[in-house]
């Protein structure tokens, strides 16, 4: 009896499975078959109309002609109607073909983004087509991890986006919230405290749109790929990495309140961060780290250094707003990044590409910053009353002094090669509008002396809003490196002069372009001009080292102008509000 019962249950289960399978495929298939049927009907109707209309010409009597005309008209009308119907049907079919995986809190197939993304990844692998995860308005407490190495999924080209209830794209990014507080991420089947909102490893063409991620342990939207290890004495022949991250799209995203970064890409070949906003990050709201080169052995040193990438894949950062962060933009060893039409304001510092030993392919360079608003970057997060805290424990010791991230500056070029800053509006930054300096190996700032200040161009920048909102001083250059130039910035640009032993024209050449210099021909050290460091007065706040070494660091503010800033409305009509921490009581 028991055995029979088992067989019956088995049969019933099989029936159910079968019926589910049939009903699952029915929707897409139905649309397809009905479209082909309609096509046949349209063809027939056309033929009929043609035949009927021919009869008009052939009709001998007037009466017959009138009758034939009527028939022709009706047949044509019918054909037209069917054609319209076919058009509609095709559009419907197209909708079916684009595969969607819907997430919402009630009534959708998926309740978590991770589940939907995994289902979409499995579907993409099976069908070799592209899927979209559509997230309906609501708050999702989770961290999503997409492992592009996992052979069970194909996440390449996957789109994850916030939608309205009617499943159309939602321009209001704040309607779909990814909440990091108490969130967990499932990694290798085990739940972990969520470090990121969405982390994508080794994925090409991952698209994330229309979402707001906040309160995560580390970052919000993070894409990366493993880089090959550097040869070491213990491991002279490392295994080449086969992972690849490229062509990601981060569009209409909002990121806030994380310990480190917001929109974050590392070791990726090109991508886009556009139409997005970020605030309250312990480091930067937008970060591009370690742009990979064609060859592992690439360097900008030697007699004839080639490009990092022969056919560069650029990263585009456009129409973004970054405010109230330690740094607006940061990019360690980043290359081929164009930042345009964006606003960096109320940060500790605005745009800060940098060269560090910790990542490969030093230095940073070949960047373009154009048509940006870079202003009021005077948020002294070292002071009391700051709405965010720096995650950094300082930048270590340079020439025996503990240095910290500098504040009160619009653009900071730290060991950059070939950066063009053009047509930006730079104003109201109370220390310097833009500064450029080396990471001297002799001071212990960089092993291998990779971070030299060279071949950078500052041109056509509008400074200090025509005198209405000046920077403390518009430019500081530490007179190291070479091949840098400053041309057509104005009106009346001001320059940090140093100790007078070098002329302003020597420190800030006004002819562009100058002949590019080679790394091997220039030095990262200049103690003559009195701008990099003043060895007689090491804490001189008008030198790079003295300013970054101010102790306590909030005292950097003590050398600012302390001027007031009139309200600012940009070209798009957006009015900005100034925010800063409590003012420091200076000694």
């Amino acid at each position, binding site marked *: 009896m028991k055995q029979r019962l*088992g*067989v019956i249950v*088995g*049969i019933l*289960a*099989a*029936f159910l*499975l*079968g019926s589910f399978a049939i009903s699952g495929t029915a929707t897409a298939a139905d649309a397809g078959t009905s479209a082909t049927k309609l096509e046949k009907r349209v063809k027939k109707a056309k033929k009929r109309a043609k035949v009927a209309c021919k009869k008009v010409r052939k009709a001998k009597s007037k009466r017959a002609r009138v009758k034939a005309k009527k028939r022709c008209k009706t047949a044509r009308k019918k054909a037209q109607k069917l054609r319209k119907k076919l058009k509609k049907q095709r559009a419907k079919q197209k909708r079916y073909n684009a595969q969607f995986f819907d997430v919402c809190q009630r009534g959708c197939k998926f309740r978590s983004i991770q589940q939907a993304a995994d289902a979409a990844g499995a579907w993409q692998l099976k069908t070799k087509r592209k899927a979209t995860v559509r997230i309906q308005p609501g708050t999702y407490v989770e961290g999503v*991890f997409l*492992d592009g*190495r996992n052979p069970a999924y194909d996440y390449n080209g996957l789109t994850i986006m916030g939608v309205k209830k009617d499943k159309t794209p939602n321009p209001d990014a704040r309607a779909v919230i990814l909440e990091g507080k108490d969130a967990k*991420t499932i*990694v*290798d089947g085990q739940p*972990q*405290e969520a*470090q*990121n909102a969405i*982390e994508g*490893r080794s994925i090409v063409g991952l698209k994330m749109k229309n979402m707001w991620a906040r309160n995560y*342990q*580390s*970052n919000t939207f*993070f894409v*990366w790929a*493993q*880089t*090959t*290890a*550097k040869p*070491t004495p*213990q*491991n002279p022949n*490392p*295994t080449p*990495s086969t992972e690849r991250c490229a062509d990601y799209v981060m569009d209409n995203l909002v990121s806030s309140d994380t*310990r*480190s970064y917001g929109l974050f890409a*590392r*070791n990726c070949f090109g991508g886009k961060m556009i139409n997005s906003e970020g605030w309250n990050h*312990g*480091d930067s709201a937008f970060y591009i*780290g*370690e742009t990979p080169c064609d060859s592992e052995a690439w360097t900008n040193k030697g007699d004839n250094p080639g490009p990092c990438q022969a056919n560069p894949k650029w990263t585009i950062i456009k129409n973004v707003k970054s405010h109230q962060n330690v740094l607006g933009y940061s990019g360690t060893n980043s290359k081929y990044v164009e930042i345009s039409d964006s606003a960096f304001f109320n940060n500790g510092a605005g745009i800060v590409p940098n060269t*560090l*030993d*910790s*990542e*490969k392919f*030093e230095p940073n360079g070949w960047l373009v910053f154009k048509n940006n608003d870079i202003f009021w970057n005077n948020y002294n997060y070292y002071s009391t009353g700051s709405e965010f805290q720096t*995650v*950094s*424990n300082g930048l270590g010791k340079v020439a025996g002094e503990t240095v910290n991230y500098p504040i009160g500056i619009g653009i900071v070029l730290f060991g950059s090669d070939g950066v063009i800053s053009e047509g930006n509006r730079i104003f109201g930054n109370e220390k310097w509008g833009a500064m450029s300096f080396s990471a001297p190996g002799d001071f212990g700032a960089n092993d291998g002396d990779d971070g030299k200040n060279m071949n950078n161009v500052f041109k056509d920048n509008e400074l200090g809003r025509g005198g209405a909102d000046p920077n403390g001083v518009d430019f500081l250059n530490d007179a190291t490196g070479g091949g840098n130039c400053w041309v057509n910035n104005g009106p009346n640009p001001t320059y940090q002069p140093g100790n007078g032993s070098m002329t302003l024209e020597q420190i800030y050449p006004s002819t562009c372009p100058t002949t590019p210099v080679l790394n091997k021909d220039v030095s990262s050290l200049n103690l003559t001009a009195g701008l990099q460091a003043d060895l007689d007065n090491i804490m001189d706040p008008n030198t790079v080292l003295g300013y970054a070494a101010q102790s306590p660091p909030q005292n950097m503010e003590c050398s600012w102008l302390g001027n007031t800033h009139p309200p600012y409305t940009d070209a798009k009509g957006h009015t900005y509000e100034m925010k800063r921490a409590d003012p420091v009581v200076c000694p």
Partner: protein
Amino acid sequence: MNSSLKKRLPGILATGLVALAVGAAGAPTVTASTDASVSGLTKAQKKAKAKALKKCKKKRAAKARKKCIKKVNKKFAAKAKPKGKTKRVDVLDDYFTPAELTIKRGDWVNWVWGNENANAHNVSLDSGPASLTAAEKYKLSTANAPQRNYSFKRQLNKVGQYNFYCSLHAGTMYMTIQVTK
């Protein structure tokens, strides 16, 4: 009615058989994930676990079977006593400490992420003893890149040199572990 059922019966039975076969094939994969040799159970514990798993396998419904296996695994995992000593490696900004380590075969290494970290880090095995399989290599690396509040513990069972690095900070973050007999 009867004739239509007759017609459908072979198809139904075939589908049923396929479903049963899938269910049966699914069971071993569940048990395979719990590797007793790594678990460090005593002989008696192993015997008890095998007995309990055998009981589970007898269950007809796949769902109940899976649930039972999961329960058994959980029960015995808690009692498992890992063999070998555990050595701690701190994962900090942007280095491992200690960067060189010598342990005995069967010892464990526990990588612990510093709570003050500002950067995300991972543990990636670049190379190890030649006899390591691809699956073992995969298990000796973290999948994602955490920043803090995280630890990663692995047992090294094969003698030789293991070269690890952080693939996000390949400029500075390296470590070597020598596993001896």
